[in-house]
């Protein structure tokens, strides 16, 4: 039995706000010691359960691996509910249980022009992707965001790859962002498109990829209870109409493997 996926009791090293933190928003880096997790493929995730959860909330929380090095696991977390609030208030030394890397990561085709389409915290796995890509010159990022740009690791990513940000301030910005996406998908139709972010973004990318015959992957953020294929709660309908587990067969899927719908 490999140690891949085994359940580890780690310790928080630091919790750092990524930028300005407000009553309604806030993004944080969580750093933990890494006592020997298997190397990750960017796009894989971990399940996280701080001791502070007690029996409520019951579920652990899934997070993309933002960065995994031999001595550090870094997550990039947006405080947006009960669980993430508790996580982002942890202090150095606090115990947290982590299992992973889990699931299927993004395809890596070093020689192929690749664009990362990220919405909000969907930027997290692209840190690892860019940092481990052998030819970052072939990589671009298009990033849509609502919180101030300084809340995200956008500056860091811009140092590694060609990066462009698009702020969504008013409802009018959405159609403009979508046409920006359309331009990108068309441009990369012969390359590789990777998307991570809110479901509406993924649905748009899937639709555009189909229209332009582009090869595209999306990373789903379905509700997960176990993260290891045991509960059948996280499923998504595949192209054959069967339900497949997002946690083991995904979270990253080729868009043509799925028949994506609004609900999840």
């Amino acid at each position, binding site marked *: *039995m490999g140690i891949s996926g085994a359940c580890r009791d780690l310790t928080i090293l630091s919790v750092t706000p990524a930028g300005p933190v407000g009553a309604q928003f806030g993004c944080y880096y969580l750093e933990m010691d890494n006592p020997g997790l298997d190397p990750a493929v960017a796009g894989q995730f971990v399940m996280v359960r701080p001791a502070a959860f007690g029996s409520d909330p*019951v579920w652990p929380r899934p997070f993309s691996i933002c960065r995994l090095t031999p001595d550090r696991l870094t997550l990039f977390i947006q405080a947006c509910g009960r669980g993430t609030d508790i996580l982002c208030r942890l202090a150095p030394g606090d115990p947290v249980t982590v299992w992973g890397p889990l699931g299927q990561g993004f395809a890596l085709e070093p020689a192929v022009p690749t664009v990362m389409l990220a919405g909000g915290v969907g930027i997290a796995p692209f840190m690892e992707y860019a940092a481990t890509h052998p030819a970052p010159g072939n990589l671009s990022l298009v990033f849509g965001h609502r919180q101030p740009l300084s809340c995200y690791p956008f500056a860091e990513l811009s140092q590694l790859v060609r990066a462009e940000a698009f702020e969504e301030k008013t409802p009018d910005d959405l159609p403009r962002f979508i046409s920006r996406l359309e331009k990108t998908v068309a441009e990369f139709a012969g390359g590789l498109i990777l998307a991570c972010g809110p479901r509406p973004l993924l649905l748009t990318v899937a639709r555009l990829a189909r229209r332009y015959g582009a090869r595209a992957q999306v990373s789903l953020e379905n509700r997960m209870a*176990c993260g290891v*294929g045991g*509960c059948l*709660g996280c499923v998504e309908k595949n192209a054959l*109409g069967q*339900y497949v587990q997002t946690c083991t067969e995904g979270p990253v899927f080729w868009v043509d493997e799925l028949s994506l719908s609004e609900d999840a």
Partner: protein
Amino acid sequence: MSADTAVRLPGMRAKNPVMTASGTFGYGMEFAPYGDLRRLGGIVVKGLSLKPRTGNAMPRIAETPCGMLNAIGLQNCGVEAFLRDKLPRLPFKDTPIIANLYACDADEFAELAGVLAAEEGVAALEVNISCPNVKAGGIAFGQDPAMAGKLTEAVKKRAGNKPVWVKLSPNVTDIVGIARAAVLGGADVLTCINTLTGMAVDIRSRKPRLANVIGGLSGPAIKPVALRCVWQVCQAVSAPVIGVGGVSSAEDVLEFILVGAHAVQIGTANFMRPDMAFRIAERLPQLMDELGIKDLDEYRGTLLAG
């Protein structure tokens, strides 16, 4: 470690009372990376039907205070694929593998029992007469004593030498009545309890949080109800009872044994951390040592009540 955790059940011996609950431990192998499956007292696999089932639409799960709702709708690969692809990979020689059966009527249940009874790797048949998440059959069997009795009889006839476990629903006025009927029908073991029917809604979208609207409530939240059911059933019938509902620590295991259970099943707690069942199985003998409990037979049902 001096404490003896072994448990004798009809037709099988479990090295400890820590089993996993159906639907919360996949087909078993999903959890192999997190512990040695042979360390568990038993593994009850995801509910199986004669034919594969797609299950319910999404969303299927929702978190609730100290618990969760599910309406998976018994998605499963079907008994054939289970026997062909899943069972052979499980350590059935070392740990009892219990098949959980779901069907829409008594005939189908009996047929399914017949298929499973022929398999060496299956230690027992757990009949799910209490699933709240499927339209046909499901919970109705578990809410009427006459139906529960007949169904058990039908399964028992085809079960050969496999022990038949009947899994009871807490969504009844009188769980003891159903328990008695199942035992009269030939149940060797009773599993208590399946989920409580519950519901959750989103006030913004005005939608139910489960596509199925109603689902099954599980997790620590329901432990008091599960304990009460096990206690009542143990007082009334002599068949061994397996306690299920909110078990998430070795202390919880002893609570169920104290009220009379022979063993327990870990359900939702497997989601809290995937090595939960292994940890509980490891911790139990230590806890027994701390409390001066030499074996479980000595402790079972010794609640000082009344």
